[in-house]
């Protein structure tokens, strides 16, 4: 897990404080922990890190908003109110709205199966879950075109029944689900594996039915990891470009998501429009980061152990 508490950090601080308080410092000799670097090295490292972040993260971020508000608030809002832009926003929300809950279900089910049960083909399932990460999103899009496209394997059958998947909303939703599907499961598997089966066994022995065990014991134990996975999944679903681009067909007002809409506007030299929509995606990213930090903080709070009471029974 990426948000585990680093054990011992606080202890180390207090140990240093204690030693500096109790030990008289010999004059002219600085006390420095063995692992700490001299001040110039530390400053150099900090400057490099901050400089890198400024150049590659903060500047572009600022540039997005600068471009978007280039001609003031009016044109910015107009670009967002434009029917094609609104349709793109709606489509993005729709596909994320379908993909995220489905991935939530899939992720919990897959993580539950992998972490709590032994079965044949488990390692195959773990590998399959990772597949969407290993494959380029463009390839993922192409897979759907080959499957559901007009000349694809299922194309003629779909045609006969008047079902359109490629160059339509269902294709976009499918592609989004594909690229986001490992996110929740990946987050939960290590968490659930680390927690083991004992608490569930304890619940069952105490008379809890399957659903009571899940909602009262399993879910509370994984809720922060789950929320974290959902946040990441949502960010990826809204920001996906490659896979969606292949299956969308770029029909304005119909099959354009926000990312595709940005690209089209940009290619038409409509910078204010492109960056206005882009600024929404940027805001989404910032909200995601804020939520992520909040969840990490909350999870740490939940895990934080109070003082252990040393008492003989």
């Amino acid at each position, binding site marked *: 897990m990426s948000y585990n508490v680093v054990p011992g950090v606080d202890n180390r601080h207090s140990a240093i404080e204690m030693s500096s308080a109790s030990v008289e410092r010999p004059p002219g000799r600085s006390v420095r922990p063995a692992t700490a670097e001299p001040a110039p090295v530390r400053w150099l490292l900090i400057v490099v890190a901050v400089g890198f972040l400024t150049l590659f993260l903060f500047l572009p971020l600022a540039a997005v908003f600068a471009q978007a508000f280039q001609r003031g608030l009016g044109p910015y809002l107009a670009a967002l109110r434009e029917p094609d832009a609104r349709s793109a926003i709606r489509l993005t929300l729709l596909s994320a709205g379908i993909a995220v809950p489905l991935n939530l279900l899939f992720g919990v089910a897959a993580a539950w199966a992998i972490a709590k049960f032994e079965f044949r083909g488990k390692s195959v399932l773990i590998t399959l879950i990772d597949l969407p990460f290993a494959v380029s999103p463009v390839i993922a899009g192409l897979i759907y075109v080959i499957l559901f496209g007009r000349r694809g394997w299922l194309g003629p059958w779909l045609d006969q029944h008047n079902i359109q998947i490629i160059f339509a909303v269902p294709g976009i939703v499918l592609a989004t689900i594909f690229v986001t599907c490992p996110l929740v499961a990946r987050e939960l598997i290590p968490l659930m594996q680390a927690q083991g089966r*004992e608490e569930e066994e304890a619940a069952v022995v105490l008379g809890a039915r399957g659903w009571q065990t899940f909602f009262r014991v399993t879910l509370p134990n994984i809720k922060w990891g789950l929320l974290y996975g959902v946040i990441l999944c949502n960010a990826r679903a809204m920001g996906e470009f490659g896979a969606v681009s292949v299956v969308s067909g770029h029909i304005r007002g119909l099959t354009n998501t926000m990312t595709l809409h940005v690209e089209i506007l940009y290619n038409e030299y409509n910078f204010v429009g492109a960056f206005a929509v882009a600024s929404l995606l940027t805001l989404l990213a910032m909200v995601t980061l804020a939520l992520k930090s909040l969840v990490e903080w909350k999870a740490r709070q939940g895990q934080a152990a109070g003082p252990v009471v040393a008492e003989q029974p």
Partner: protein
Amino acid sequence: MSIEIRHVTKTFGTFTALSDVSLEVKTGELVALLGPSGSGKTTLLRIIAGLEVPDCGTILFHGEDATDRRVQDRRVGFVFQHYALFRHMTVFDNVAFGLRVMPRSMRCSKAEIRARVQRLLSLVQLDWLADRYPSQLSGGQRQRVALARALAVEPRVLLLDEPFGSLDAKVRQELRRWLRRLHQGINVTGVLVTHDQEEALEVADRVIVMNAGRIEQIGTPEEVFHHPATEFVMNFLGHVNVFHGRAEGNKAFFGAFELDYPDAPATGSLAIRGFVRPHDLEVDLQPAETTLVEGLVEHIHAAGPRVKLELLTVLGETIQVEISQERYRALGLTRGRRVYVRPREIRVFSDNPSG
């Protein structure tokens, strides 16, 4: 409630955890399943609880077949080795869990649940910690919360899986005595799994010694300690010295030492092993008719109620002897001293299955 296990076998892949195990636990009894790790004792406990399904064989609760009964319906209390407390719940909520998940028709009122949980927490002397989370408790406290949680549903059977395994020696001692008293107070049928022979002998009414998926011996603590049925039991229950010898013509011979041995074959000779506990060996400074072996004092450990000696025998083997402090002082033993060892009691086992 009595528990009966009939011909239970359980395998995990190619590993046989239990093979054809049968035993009976009487109502209100506290038995210990004692054995080394991998002997199948925990698997047997989990089968009784319903957490594992036996490959074949039956489990009877109070004479009724419970083999296919669901875990939830068995009404057993299970105390896990690592407590398995619900980490997101307070001590109070942990203990109340079993009462809150009952079907609505059987569930008691909120006030009753509260009263019962308070009663249980004072029984395990933890009522002042009701609002704490498990991570805020010491090991011994967690174990008592786990016990209170298991007792909350008024189980007819209490199963304890190495309950004191991860506690330090002093806490173990106290909890052991406390469990003994608790069991007498609430009169529930109990099965305790342990690899600690001292724990089993001290706590249980009867001890079931297990090895490699089989039962080696069932008996009271006195029986298994003083009359071990097999070499394994002898070896597992405390230190033991092994002497190799042979048996012929109704006699067993260990070098010049001999004793009556009716199991010896009428013709030919049989390889045998004599087992003597350190406290059943006596040390002399002069050879006697009953001397089993002679040796040199190699190490003396006198800090304790009894003196432990390590002797290097003339056969090049190290044996352990335990004598009283008075005897030690009377003999005036020092390192390197030549001594003669005679057994007060020797148990003879042979490869012959009847022995």
